[in-house]
């Protein structure tokens, strides 16, 4: 299930104390989901006893963040049948490997983003993904073409 900034915001102190360096708690919530900040940066949440139950809920809510790759991609291998739709549709694969993955074959480049290993999709090289780094775009081509929902993204 995707985590929304609103869900995170609801569990924050909502005091806009600015101790984390952000102007508001809402913008802090966005940054937590984008993984530019961690939940530990919210000082009142960890220092003040009255926020304890909120803090525990929030840590539980954000558990999937640790499992996801740096672009927010989550692969559930148990649901994957190995159709390789994600590998062929990937626009980066099509550009970098036009006669391999772009033409339907297995990737022929050294480090593709995704590769079929033992019948299920594995994330090999996340740095090539368009969602990686500063100038990212929110591409969802692989998720859109996965009918068994083996691929999902943090933001939904």
């Amino acid at each position, binding site marked *: 299930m995707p985590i929304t900034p609103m869900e995170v915001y609801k569990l924050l102190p909502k005091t806009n104390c600015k101790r984390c360096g952000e102007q508001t708690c809402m913008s802090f919530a966005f940054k937590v989901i984008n993984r530019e900040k961690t939940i530990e940066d919210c000082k009142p949440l960890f220092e003040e006893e009255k926020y304890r139950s909120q803090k525990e809920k929030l840590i539980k809510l954000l558990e999937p963040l640790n499992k996801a790759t740096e672009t927010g991609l989550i692969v559930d291998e148990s649901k994957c049948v*190995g159709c*390789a739709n994600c590998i062929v549709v990937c626009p980066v694969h099509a550009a970098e490997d036009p006669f391999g993955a772009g033409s339907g074959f*297995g990737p022929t480049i050294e480090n593709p983003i995704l590769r079929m290993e033992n*019948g299920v999709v594995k994330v090999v090289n996340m740095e090539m993904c368009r969602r990686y780094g500063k100038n990212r775009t929110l591409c969802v081509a692989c998720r859109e073409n996965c009918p*068994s929902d083996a691929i999902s993204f943090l933001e939904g």
Partner: protein
Amino acid sequence: MQITCTGCSCLCDDITLRFNGEKIEEVRNACRRGAGIYLHHSSNMAKPKVDGEEVELEKALERAKEIIADSKNLVIYGLDTTTVEAQKVAIELAEKMQAYIDDCSTFCLGDFVEMILKGELPTATLEDVKNNAYVITYWGTDPYNSLPRHMSRYTYYPRGGKRQRGYEEDRYLVVVDVRKSHTAKLAKKNARFIKVDDDLELIDAFMKVMNGKAPEKFADDAARVIREMKKADFNVIFGGLGLKYGLNGNYKPFIELTKKLNEISKVYFIPAGFHANMRGFNETLFEKTGCVNRYSFREQKCSNDFAFSRLIESNAVDTALIIGSDPLNSLPFDVAKNLAKINTIVIDPRRSFTSEIAKVVLPSAISGVEQSGTMVRSDGVKVEVKAVVEKDVNDVYLLKDLVRAV
């Protein structure tokens, strides 16, 4: 090591294996179905058996020869997962013994292959589809589950030839099914999912649209698909078991539909979804006899009465030679249980339900892993299959030995 996968009729030839010593450690590019064959090829191996007791292979072979020589009515069944070379020897054996021969295509897509071989349906290769096809229709089939890499390797997703912009702009996907299958979920942009209750209603709607009339049902869907088909000079229909059983043996409306479609545009038909070399068996038998399956060499004709399940049900045979198939698992139990009453010989690399009740079990080799040969892809292209570790005792060896004895 690059090999060809024999998991289904796609016969993907870009699978790479990585070894750790002799053991296959990693399979790349294969789907879950294909990878399983290579990762677990040495598990659950069959052992030579006579009457349920383990014996030497020679002894089991001797007993099989005796049973076949004594049989009056022999049926040979299976053969869909083995190579064309083995199928030829099996057909030779059937001819010598004046036996019945049949494979799973009787209740699978054999009828469509027959129509293609007789020239009633226009067909193309999957490479042509990749390079040219615009409207890609999956009718009564769910390739996501039955042929996992079909869409990504050959049809909808790859870019190639005239269709460089791929699925995003250069393809139009149509999925016809009775329920929203996994493949139907992929019909999003530039695509249509048509939910049918009766395939004939949809065929009728297409015909009416082409004749300039308004159909009562599917008016919007049928008109849109026909309009898209007119845009390109290469469209394709992949027919599966849903279409076969939807038509219920009456293929005339469908043949007429493809003829009519070919008057306004170019539409090809390719069957989709069966065992690795089912089409190979159909073509080999067709070359020899003019029939694709359920053939009797004694009566020199094919008939529904010679279908394996009918022969077993009516106790018309006294011996069954089953090669690479598990009818006790795949046929209705009431029918298949008769196999225990007659002399059953099983040639299979793995243990199966049928091998548990068989009089003689002859272990052979897995095609594509332990035996090389030729296979025929779903579109009729011959593909060479190379073994990873060649085994001496394979289907061809065993069948040739049986042929020599009779």
